[in-house]
């Protein structure tokens, strides 16, 4: 018993201080965690050489504007996954928030924002409470809130999309610019920087990684396991709510049926970013690269169609994303095994 505890504590400490280093191991670790960045840069170079205006301001800013929703959800998901959990409810939570913020939008931009984020917070609270208090598997809890949020969104919206107010300035939130950059891109950027700082330079971030590394050991070390787990689900819910506000403001309507499959997009982005689904390690920066990479694939598909060399329907997008995810996951599995064998 005491020996297994020692091993467990050792594992948790390992999660805190990083794996022991050797030159080859370091290289493998870099490839596994930062490979996505390399792939992203290669894809950008490929696009810049092949297409006109690929790196032009319009294309880059549009890409940033419309991928922020996914980025916000992916940040929340990254934290949840690093604790060894999962949050399947983010997509329909965003849909619910978009409906509520659209309904409140005639009363001004701030009330719309508060309502949307508040709805996300409530779903996150339910997730956190059921997981930490009732001790039900995160997968099941968030599956249930996935269904419930979808139902609530349809009920509030009366089964149709809810138009936002165009007078109150609510649409600026998703469509406006600030200092030449899209407002959503600012929000997304702040979320990634804030998330990165919280993960790397705070007790909260270290506790998140310790829980994912070995929950029992983290508890024995006196870390506030339940409180931190509760908080990551609330955070994930709130970020999904924020994504919903941006969705409503960008499309001019609350969309009760949107958000289906967003959770899987976010999980894919986190996995592509090199975060292991068993938790204990991960990076917010690599998650950002993952989001951009998945967004860029769609972008390049559009450009390729524009050149007229090939003509692929939008349906190919999910096939290509799937194949891409397949390749990344297999590579990651092999790298992780090699790293372990060393």
């Amino acid at each position, binding site marked *: 018993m005491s020996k297994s505890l020692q091993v467990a504590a050792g594992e948790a400490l390992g999660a805190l201080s990083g794996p022991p280093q050797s030159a080859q191991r370091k290289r493998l670790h870099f490839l596994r965690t930062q490979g996505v960045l390399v792939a992203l840069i290669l894809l950008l170079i490929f696009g810049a050489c092949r297409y006109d205006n690929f790196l032009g301001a319009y294309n880059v800013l549009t890409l940033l504007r419309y991928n922020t929703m996914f980025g916000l959800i992916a940040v929340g998901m990254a934290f949840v996954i690093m604790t060894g959990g*999962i949050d399947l409810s983010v997509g329909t939570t965003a849909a619910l928030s978009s409906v509520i913020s659209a309904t409140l939008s005639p009363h001004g931009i701030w009330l719309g924002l508060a309502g949307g984020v508040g709805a996300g917070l409530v779903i996150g609270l339910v997730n956190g409470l*059921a997981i930490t208090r*009732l*001790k*039900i*598997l995160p*997968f*099941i*809890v968030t*599956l*249930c*809130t*996935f*269904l*419930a949020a*979808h*139902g*609530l*969104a*349809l*009920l509030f919206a009366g*089964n149709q999309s809810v138009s936002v107010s165009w007078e109150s300035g609510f649409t600026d939130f998703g469509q406006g610019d600030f200092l030449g950059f899209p407002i959503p891109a600012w929000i997304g950027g702040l979320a990634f920087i804030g998330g990165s700082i919280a993960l790397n330079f705070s007790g909260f971030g270290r506790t998140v990684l310790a829980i994912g590394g070995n929950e029992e050991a983290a508890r024995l070390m006196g870390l506030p396991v339940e409180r931190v787990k509760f908080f990551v689900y609330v955070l994930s819910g709130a970020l999904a709510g924020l994504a919903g506000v941006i969705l409503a403001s960008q499309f001019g309507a609350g969309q009760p049926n949107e958000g*289906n*499959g967003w959770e*899987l997009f976010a*999980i*894919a982005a986190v*996995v592509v970013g090199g975060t292991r*689904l*068993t938790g204990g390690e991960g990076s917010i920066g690599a998650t950002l690269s993952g989001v951009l990479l998945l967004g860029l694939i769609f972008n390049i598909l559009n450009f390729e169609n524009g050149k007229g060399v090939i003509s692929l*329907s939008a*349906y*190919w*997008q*999910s*096939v*290509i*994303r*799937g*194949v891409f*995810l*397949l390749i990344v*996951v*297999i590579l990651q*599995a*092999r790298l992780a*095994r090699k790293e372990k064998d060393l």
Partner: protein
Amino acid sequence: MTALALRLGQSRRLIPSGALLGLVLLVVFNLAFTQNFLSLQTFNINLTQVSTIVIVAVGMTMVIATGGIDLSVGSLMAISGALAPLIFGAHSGLFAVPVLGMACAIVLPILAASAGGALNGTLVTRFRIQPIVATLILFIAGRGIAQVLTNGNLQTFSNDTFHWLGLGKVLGVPAQVIIMLIIVAIAAWVMRATLFGRYILATGGNERAARLAGVPVTRVKMAVYVICGALSGLAGLLVIAINSSADANLIGMGIELDAIAAVAVGGTLLTGGRARILGTLIGALIIQLVRYTLLAHGVPDAAALVVKAAIILAAVYLQKRE
């Protein structure tokens, strides 16, 4: 009747007593308060609607019993459902031969879905990828493949064999319901009385121990994903048969959640090591009846979703305390 049902549930432990009690209460409530509940039509409608979910959920039960999960079932249904009309609709080549074409239209789509299951199994066993990620790949790509096959178009058809699969009856019982019952019976027998069933439970209970005890863990896991894929393929064929049309965008949409919910309510441990095929059938029936009851009493479908979520949570919570 309730007492008898409870005793049955407890003595055999095939079905969690809570789920059985829930089902009995639902039926009693409907008998008392829902008009025209006790009619063959109501009976057939509910069973027909639940049959595809049950067929998928049986495969899901086996996968979950090994400690895995399969998110790709809906996409595999879409592939098989999109493929079948392409084959029996062909007017030239080998597929144009009537009997051969028909056989191919049933066998090839199921094989295609099984191949998807084999991919899932390979990723889980050979590459040691967590099941939720491994099956996420086909969840995303599978529907895309089905949409690419049909260019996203609705395929309508009139075909005798599929017409019978969808609307045919044997002694007044719809064909899909019979297929569903046969599959449930076979799966329940496999889990209770065969070595393979024991292997599945051993793998889910403690994989390391099972491996050391000589259980062919890799082959067992591979097999359950292939079986789950094949059953999804069959369910896809039934869905298009019922509708007399195939829409790759909609076939099997969201069914993975219904299937997992049925498994959870039916008392199969979601962490693996215990499987209750009959429980899964009861679980699916409960979810279907709840939805039917709410709809019959004028509660909108959206509210039924919220209720469904609460039921699954309650079922899993009670199962934990059991």
